[in-house]
């Protein structure tokens, strides 16, 4: 087994176990902090797919921004006086249906993905960096989308600040 495979399975385990922690844990804070390991593991997978810029962006935006926001959200919308910040779930019957449905989705899609003849090309040559290529694409072909995304971010943050403000 090559080193690459070992590292792949390591990160895959981190991602799946911690995602399970997010979904199944009874305490909200545990879910939030499990999300940290999910993001970290996904970023490791990006590195294995030689997407270095995306991997670092993943850590920066998800861990440094979104996760902190979510933790603040958890703290602000629950009473911190008790240690156990729990969240209610549905009854066993509904849980069973939801579990069966998502399991069915997973099984169906796995079978589908294994039987499909994907348009496989030879793996990309190990490029030294993806930053230049991404920057080039963003400022030529996707310039409009890039500009719209920038405006969207601005609008979203102004809107968020406006909505969250106490009246």
């Amino acid at each position, binding site marked *: 087994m*090559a080193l690459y495979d070992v590292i*792949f399975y390591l990160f*895959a385990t981190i*991602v*799946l176990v911690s*995602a*399970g922690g*997010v*979904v199944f844990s009874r305490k*909200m804070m545990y879910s939030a902090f499990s999300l940290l390991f*999910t*993001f970290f593991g*996904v970023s490791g*997978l*990006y590195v294995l*797919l*030689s*997407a270095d*810029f*995306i991997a670092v*962006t*993943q850590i920066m*935006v*998800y861990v440094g*921004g*979104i996760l902190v926001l*979510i933790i*603040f*959200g*958890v703290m*602000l*919308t629950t009473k911190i006086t008790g240690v156990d910040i729990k*969240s*209610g*779930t*549905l009854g066993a019957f509904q849980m069973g249906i939801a*579990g069966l*449905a*998502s*399991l069915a*989705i*997973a099984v169906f*899609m796995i079978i589908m993905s294994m039987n499909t003849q*994907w*348009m*496989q*090309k030879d*793996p*990309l040559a190990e490029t030294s960096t993806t930053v230049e290529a*991404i920057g080039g*694409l963003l400022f030529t072909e*996707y310039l409009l989308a890039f500009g719209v*995304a920038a405006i969207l*971010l601005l609008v*979203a*943050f102004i809107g*968020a600040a*406006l*909505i*969250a403000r106490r009246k």
Partner: protein
Amino acid sequence: MGIGLTHYLIISILLFALGVFGIATRKNAILVLMGLELILNSANINFIAFARFGGMNIEGHVAVIFVIILAAAEVAVALAIILNIYQNFRHVDVDEINQLKD
């Protein structure tokens, strides 16, 4: 057989199924948001995997960047709305929030 496209797809599918399960079963709005993040991440893994193995090249990376931008904007707005809901209802249980006014 080394690690190929299918491995990454399977991880992405499992992550997606976990996210769907989380969204379907959890009542707390913030936990629903976390399930959404899992689904977005699984989509991103797909993009990057196809960029590496399926000839999508750098365009896959660009798509992921836009997904991340949208995720950031979405979380900011969603949390603002959730905070507002909390101020009005004193809870964030998505099953019981069934009216637009308080």
